[in-house]
């Protein structure tokens, strides 16, 4: 049933302006922070449109989309079951109006800047920026009108997009997303495509020196259209075919798929080349750490903000045990000989941190572990320990890892080490998750005292979680040392802990694929997008806030977590409706 509840025109206008002001805030923020200009150096489509300009246009269209979304919510304030449809004319109108507000704010900025030299206070408001905002027209009437016209049009388009057919919307949004993504990694694509073995024209046809070519963009759009149009049919046909197969051949298909994934993982460094392999290794570093932290935080529910301490202990013990630097250590073990010691030492460090915080929970635990993380860094920096671990000078001359006669030089070979360690961490986490130990951890996470009274020795399992988490982190620390060949205290800042925890949250706490997804997004993307460098933390913050609002369970949530966040309230409501508690009579003599 379609049920339209109207609201007055004045309210609709007010709502659109309100959303427009919200868009204004976003636009002006990006302008004043300087992101727009930073990204003006790179193109989405070479010679046509830069990433900075794309951001502005995205905000224009996004505001329009958001305005219609808000309008729909206003029409259906109690989230009734039946669909409320927003009329197309309203969608166009509110989209355009809210877009206009944003565009006007851009024009206003240009006017204000021509009267007062804003640059004296806000360094980001440069002449280049004015050029970007006015799309090259500068401080002229055209320069004021163009952003307004563009924003109105794009706002209307954004608004229409909300009420249009789902497949059309999908094509537009996905095309935009993939073209921009491809542009952001275009350098990488270019390097990968122009390596020996590939015909030269490929890289030149699709990628320019600083973005995609028109052909490249069109190809991406074509792929997206093909996928949206034919994807569902292909997928459903494949599914029916799979259903009709015997279990044996179904299993074969599954084996086939897995071996394909495995093959891809094995050949990845060869496919992507040297620099991307380095990025992959950095991602691997955090994936391993993520698996370890997932045991502590995701499974056992112990919020550890000082996880870097275990990473540091692993790295430093590996460095001391293997370095050829004469003043330090003197063990000069090989990587493989040192590894068991490193794991044991770090596991022990985990117990050491775990023991004093056994009685703490939640926030208190977080603060204390945060302290432990900082202590680890200060110890590494201290003069007191300098004779043993090098102090601020760090430890150098750490030999490369070798397997038999093969020395793992360069990121492409080291990648396999990360793959091995990451695979081991994944395997261990996966196996433990569905076992008596995993259940004990989960029970502890859910309700510690009840877990205790159901026979779970919470002291033991907390220590076990810290110990296991630390041992997995030690793998990551050991590989970090092997990768760099030297080690300095400043590598072990609180930022490492925060990144590890953020990737869990973004990926989905408690979810193993989520760890991988989170690491790719939070570690991989900033490495590929050089410009993000100075805005990295800003992006983390923005990403975390966005995730918490839109998808609090993470990119690839664990089953329990998704249930918890999306169904609990509803389920509780139902329970209260179904079982209204009846008062039990407290009458000793009554029957």
């Amino acid at each position, binding site marked *: 049933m379609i049920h339209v509840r109207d609201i007055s025109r004045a309210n609709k206008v007010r709502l659109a302006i309100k959303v427009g002001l919200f868009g204004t805030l976003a636009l002006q923020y990006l302008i004043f922070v300087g992101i727009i200009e930073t990204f003006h150096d790179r193109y989405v489509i070479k010679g046509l449109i830069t990433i900075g300009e794309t951001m502005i246009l995205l905000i224009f269209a996004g505001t329009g989309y958001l305005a219609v979304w808000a309008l729909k919510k206003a029409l259906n304030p109690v989230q009734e079951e039946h669909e409320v449809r927003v009329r197309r004319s309203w969608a166009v109108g509110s989209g355009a109006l809210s877009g206009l507000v944003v565009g006007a704010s851009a024009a206003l900025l240009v006017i204000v800047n021509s009267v007062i030299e804003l640059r004296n206070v806000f360094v980001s408001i440069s002449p280049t920026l004015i050029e970007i905002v006015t799309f090259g027209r500068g401080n002229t009437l055209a320069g004021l009108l163009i952003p307004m016209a563009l924003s109105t049009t794009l706002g209307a388009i954004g608004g229409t997009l909300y009420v249009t057919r789902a497949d059309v919307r999908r094509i537009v949004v996905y095309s935009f997303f993939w073209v921009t993504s491809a542009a952001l990694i275009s350098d990488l694509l270019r390097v990968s495509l122009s390596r020996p073995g590939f015909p030269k024209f490929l890289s030149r046809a699709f990628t320019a020196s600083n973005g995609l070519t028109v052909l490249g963009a069109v190809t991406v759009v074509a792929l997206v259209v093909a996928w949206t149009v034919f994807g569902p049919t292909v997928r459903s046909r494949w599914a029916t075919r799979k259903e009709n197969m015997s279990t044996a051949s179904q299993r074969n298909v599954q084996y086939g798929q897995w071996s394909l994934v495995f093959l891809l993982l094995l050949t990845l460094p060869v496919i992507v080349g040297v620099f991307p392999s380095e990025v992959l290794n950095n991602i691997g570093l955090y994936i391993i750490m993520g698996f370890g932290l997932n045991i502590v935080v995701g499974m056992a529910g112990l919020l550890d903000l000082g996880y870097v301490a275990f990473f540091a202990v692993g790295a430093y013990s590996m460095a001391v045990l293997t370095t050829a630097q004469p003043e330090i250590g003197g063990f000069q073990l090989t990587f493989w000989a040192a590894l068991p010691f490193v794991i044991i030492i770090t596991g022990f460090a985990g117990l050491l941190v775990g023991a004093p915080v056994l009685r703490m929970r939640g926030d208190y635990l977080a603060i204390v572990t945060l302290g432990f993380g900082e202590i680890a860094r200060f110890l590494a920096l201290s003069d007191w320990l300098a004779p043993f671990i090098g102090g601020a000078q760090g430890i150098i001359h750490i030999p490369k890892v070798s397997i038999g006669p093969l020395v793992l030089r360069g990121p492409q070979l080291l990648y396999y080490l990360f793959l091995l360690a990451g695979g081991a961490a994944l395997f261990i986490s996966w*196996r*433990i998750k569905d*076992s*008596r130990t995993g259940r004990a951890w*989960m*029970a502890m996470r859910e309700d510690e005292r009840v877990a*205790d009274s159901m*026979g*779970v020795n919470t002291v033991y399992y907390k220590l076990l979680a810290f110990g296991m988490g630390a041992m997995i982190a030690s793998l990551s620390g050991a590989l970090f040392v092997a990768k760099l060949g030297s080690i300095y205290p400043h590598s072990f800042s609180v930022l490492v802990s925060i990144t590890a925890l953020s990737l869990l949250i973004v990926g989905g706490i408690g979810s193993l694929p989520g760890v991988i997804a989170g690491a790719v997004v939070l570690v991989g993307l900033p490495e590929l997008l050089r410009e993000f460098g100075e805005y990295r933390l800003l992006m983390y913050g923005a990403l975390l806030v966005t995730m918490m609002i839109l998808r609090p369970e993470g990119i690839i949530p664990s089953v329990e977590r998704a249930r918890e966040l999306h169904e609990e309230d509803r389920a509780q409501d139902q329970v209260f409706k179904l079982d209204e508690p009846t008062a039990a009579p407290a009458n000793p003599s009554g*029957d």
Partner: protein
Amino acid sequence: MPPIFECEALVKNFGGLSAVNHFDLRIEQGEIVSLIGPNGAGKTTFFNLVTGFYPPDSGIIRSNGHDLVGLSPYQITQQGVARTFQNVRLFPNMTVLENVMVGQHSRTKNGVLGAILRLPSFKAEEEAIRQKAKEQLDFFGTRLSGYRLDEPAYRLSYANRRRLEIARAMATEANLLLMDEPSAGMNPKETEEITELIGQLRDERGFTILFIEHDMRVVKGVSDRVVAMDFGTKIAEGSYETVAQDDRVIEAYLGRTSEDGADGR
């Protein structure tokens, strides 16, 4: 043979409040004993003392002759004493089956290494845990079996949550079950069922049961013996009829308002 449960001169003070004051209780194998008393009488505090949530200030608690004082809750569970909670406390985001499987924790022993390597002993034990858990759930008929096994616990109805909590306690393979107001918040029909269930737990599963209850229909229906408590001490003990007619019990319930003093939980 020592009794399945005994406590002597049990004392617990919270600051100036005497929650449990020289409380004695003896339960023989196979008995169903109910503990009644107005709010704040110290019933739940007594449960918390027995299950190791608080240490008693003084006194003796023994189960089958083993001293329970000073043991952690999990050790007490290992000794064969399991409990349910007044305000149902499940592991809400774990499935129904997993909740009960956790109950088997103290009766099983596989660790991390077994889990990682999936040794035959690990597989056999996991299977045994699963079977045992299902067995406990089957005790409640179709209410907690079938598709519900893999539902998260929070999705259950209130009455089913109470049942699940009992199943979880059963899975610890305890001798003595402590149930804190098993019928709280249930409608008359469900209350009747719970009464029957308590009897079945003893007759079919061999549990000895001590339960706190406010609903006198349940108390009357199933208890072998009723113990009335007020101000932390035992004020009456015996059959339902004796206790119900005891002057001190009637006074405890009717002679003053029941709001003075929060229940110890």
